[in-house]
C-alpha cells in the first residue's frame, strides 16, 4: 500500500468516526452552511460537532501549515481528503472568505506574526471576514476606487463606502482596499484589515432580484485603523488585490464554476417523464439539454486539465480568466434550462414544495456569476490582451 493509500484509509476511518450523519445530508437552506464567526448560531449540535472535529484535526484548512491552524497536508493528500469527503457527501465544515480569500493573501504577503494572529481564528471559525473591494463608482474599473485613508501618524482615518460586500452585516472583520495616495493610481492603495465593530462602520443590506440580500453597502465614517493592520506594503495593496483576484478566478475555475457537473437531462428525465422510445418527452428541450450536457462534460475535462497544468506551472497565467468566463456562462445556461424544465412550478416564489422558490431564486442569483469577480466582458478583454496578444487591447 502506498503512503497515499494509507492516508486514504486513515481519512476514511476518521470521517466515519467524526462526520455526523446529519452532516452527510444535502444542504437544504442557508442555515445549513456554517460560516462561523462571533455571532454564529449553530443550527444543531451536529453542525457544531462536525466543525469542532475538523478544527481539532486542522481539516477546515487542510493544506495550511499546522502553526496556522491547518493540517499541513500535501496537495495530493488534500485531494484525497476532498475525494473522501465527497464520497460520503460530507458537508463543508466551514465556509469562509477568510479561508478562500484572506488566508491565501496572508500566506503569500503576511508577516509571520500576522499569519499566526489572523489565520488561526479563521481556521477555527471564530472570526468571519468580508471583502471590501468594489465601490459605487468602481466596479469593473476597480483601481479607480476612492475610499480614502488619511495618515494620522499611528493610524489612518478611513472615509468612503464599499458595495457588494458579501455578508458585511454578519462579518466580524473586513479586508479592504483603501486609497492612501491620491496622486498614484495603482501604487496608492493599501490592503487594510479592520474590525467591523469599529466606530464609524455601518452596513446596509441590498435587496437583490433573487429576493435575498447576500450583499451590503458598507459605509466608513472616520473609521480609525491602526497602522499595523495592513498586508504587504503601504500603497502596494493593488499587488495583493491582483493576486487575490487571480486566486479567486482560479478557485472559481477549480470549483464548480460550471455549477453541478452532472447531466441535467438525466436529472430532468426522472421528473419530466419519457416517451415510448425512452427519450425525455419534449424533443427540443431534450436537444438543448443534451447540447448543454456535452458542454458540461467538456468543461469538466477542461477543469481537470486546467488544475493539472495550473499546479505544475504549465498553465498560461491568464488562463483562469478563460475558466471563469466559460464556467460562469455555462452555469447561467444551466439555470435557464432548470427553469424551462421546471415549468410553472419553478416560478413559485415562496411555496414550501419549492423550498421557498429555490429554483427561481437560484436562477436569478446565477446572473451575478458573470458580473462578480470580473465580468465576462473583462475576462474576454484579458484573454484578448494577455493570451492572444491582440493590439491595443
Amino acid at each position, binding site marked *: 500500500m502506498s503512503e497515499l493509500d494509507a492516508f486514504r484509509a486513515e481519512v476514511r476511518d476518521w470521517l466515519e468516526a467524526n462526520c455526523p450523519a446529519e452532516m452527510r445530508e444535502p444542504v437544504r437552506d442557508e442555515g445549513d452552511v456554517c460560516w462561523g464567526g462571533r455571532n454564529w448560531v449553530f443550527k444543531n449540535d451536529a453542525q457544531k460537532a462536525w466543525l469542532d472535529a475538523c478544527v481539532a484535526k486542522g481539516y477546515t484548512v487542510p493544506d495550511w501549515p499546522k502553526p496556522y491552524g491547518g493540517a499541513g497536508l500535501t496537495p495530493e493528500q488534500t485531494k484525497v481528503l476532498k475525494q473522501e469527503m465527497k464520497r460520503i457527501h460530507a458537508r463543508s465544515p466551514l465556509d469562509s472568505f477568510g479561508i478562500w480569500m484572506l488566508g491565501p493573501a496572508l500566506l503569500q504577503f503576511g508577516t509571520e506574526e500576522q499569519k499566526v494572529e489572523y489565520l488561526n481564528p479563521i481556521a477555527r471559525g471564530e472570526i468571519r471576514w468580508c471583502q471590501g473591494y468594489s465601490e459605487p463608482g468602481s466596479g469593473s474599473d476597480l483601481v479607480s476606487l476612492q475610499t480614502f485613508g488619511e495618515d494620522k501618524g499611528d493610524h489612518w482615518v478611513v472615509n468612503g463606502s464599499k458595495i457588494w460586500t458579501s455578508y458585511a452585516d454578519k462579518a466580524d472583520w473586513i479586508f479592504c482596499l483603501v486609497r492612501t495616495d491620491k496622486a498614484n493610481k495603482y501604487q496608492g492603495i493599501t490592503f487594510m484589515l479592520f474590525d467591523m465593530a469599529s466606530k464609524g462602520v455601518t452596513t446596509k443590506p441590498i435587496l437583490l432580484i433573487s429576493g435575498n440580500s447576500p450583499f451590503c453597502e458598507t459605509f466608513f465614517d472616520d473609521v480609525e485603523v491602526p497602522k499595523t493592520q495592513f498586508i504587504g506594503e503601504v500603497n502596494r495593496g493593488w499587488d495583493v488585490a491582483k493576486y487575490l483576484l487571480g486566486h479567486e478566478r482560479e478557485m472559481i475555475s477549480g470549483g464548480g464554476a460550471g455549477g453541478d457537473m452532472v447531466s441535467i437531462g438525466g436529472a430532468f428525465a426522472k421528473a419530466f417523464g*419519457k416517451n415510448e422510445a425512452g427519450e425525455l418527452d419534449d424533443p427540443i428541450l431534450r436537444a438543448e439539454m*443534451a*447540447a448543454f450536457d456535452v458542454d458540461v462534460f467538456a468543461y469538466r475535462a477542461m477543469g481537470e486539465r486546467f488544475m493539472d497544468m495550473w499546479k505544475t506551472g504549465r498553465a498560461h497565467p491568464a488562463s483562469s480568466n478563460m475558466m471563469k468566463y466559460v464556467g460562469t456562462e455555462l452555469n447561467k445556461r444551466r439555470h435557464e434550462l432548470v427553469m424551462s424544465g421546471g415549468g410553472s412550478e419553478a416560478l413559485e416564489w415562496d411555496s414550501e414544495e419549492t423550498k421557498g422558490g429555490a429554483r427561481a431564486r437560484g436562477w436569478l442569483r446565477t446572473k451575478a456569476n458573470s458580473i462578480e469577480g470580473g465580468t465576462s466582458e473583462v475576462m474576454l478583454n484579458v484573454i484578448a490582451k494577455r493570451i492572444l496578444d491582440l493590439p491595443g487591447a
Partner: protein
Amino acid sequence: MPLYHNDDQAMLKDSVAPFVAEQAPVSHLRSLRDSADATGFSRDLWAQFTEMGLPGMLVPEAHGGLGMGHMEAGIVLEEIGRNLTPSPFLSTSVGAVAALAKAGGTQAGRWLPAIASGEAIIALAIDEGAKHRPDRIATTATRAGNGFRLDGKKSFVLHGHVADMSIVAAKTDGGITLFAVPKDAKGVTADPRRLVDSSLASHVTLDGVEVDADAVIGEVDAGGEILDALLAATRTGAAAEMVGVGQGAMDMTVNYLKERKQFGKLIGEFQGLQHRAAHLYGEMEVARATVMKAQQLLDEGSEGARLMVSVAKAKAGRAANLAVREGVQMHGGIGMTDEYDIGLYMKRDRALAEYMGDVHYHIDQVARMNGY
C-alpha cells in the same frame, strides 16, 4: 494521469510537428488537388510517415508496431489537421488498428504487421447512407460454402478505391460481423467521389462478394464490440484532427487580426473582434481538453470512455466549426478566395465533422447514455 502531455509525448510532438509542417503543409494539399490526383494522398509522404514509424504507432509491439496509445496518435492527428494533410492515417492506423487489435486472430496477424510496415492501406466501410447510422446496418453476410456472401452498399468510404483491404460491417443471423474484404475480391466496386475538401471517398457496392470464413474479424455475430472499438478510436481521432484544423484556423485568423488595417487601425484593436476571438480561444481550449480526456480514458480502457468519446466528437465539432466560420468572416473578402488557405480549413472541417457521426448524432448519443 495528469491531463497534459508527458515528456515523451512532448518529444513526439516536437518531432512530428515540424515534420508534417515541412513535408505536408497546405501547399501539399493544393498540389494534389490541382493535379487532380487520383489516389487521394501522396504515397511518397506515406513512405516518410513509415520511416518515422507512424503508421504502426497503435499496432501492438508483438505485431511490429510501437504499441502507443490514442494520446500519441492524437498528437500526429492534430498536426495532420493543422496542415490539412491528406493521409490514410486516421482510417488505417487508428480505426483499422483499433478493430484488428481488439479482435486478434488471423486477420490481426495478417494485417497489423502490414500496417506497421506501411504496406497496407485500410478503408472503413461502415456508413450506408448520407448520415452515420451504425446501429442500422443493412448490408448482409449470408453463409455460403465455406464462407460468406456479402451484399450491400457502403458510402463515405475514405480511401475505399485504393485500400488494400476494407473492413466491412455486415448483418449476420445473430448480430453484426466485421469482415476483412481484400482489394481484389470479386463483386466489389468502389466508385470514388471528390468531396468538398478534395478528399476522395467511395460509394462501395458489394454484389455477391464471396469471402472465406477466416475473413471474419473476431467472431461471427460478435462484431458489435469490435465495431465499437473501431468507432471510438476513429471518432476520437477525427476529433483530434478537428482540434488541429480549428487551431490552425484560429492561429491564422488571430495573426490576420494583427496585420490587417482598416479605418487606420489594426482590426485586432476592435473590441467587437477581440471578444469573438477570445471566446473562440476558450472554446478551442475546452475542446482540446475534452479530446485529451477521451484519449486518456480510451488508453486506460475505462468504462467512461464511451461517453467522453461522443462528448469529444461533439465538442471538437462545435469548436472547430466556430473557428473556421469566424476565420472566414474575420478574413473578410480575402477569406472567400480560393487563393487564401482559410477556406480550405472550412472545407476540411466540414468533412471531418460529418465523419463517424456529426455533432447532432453525438449530442443525441450523450442524451441516451445519460438515460434520456
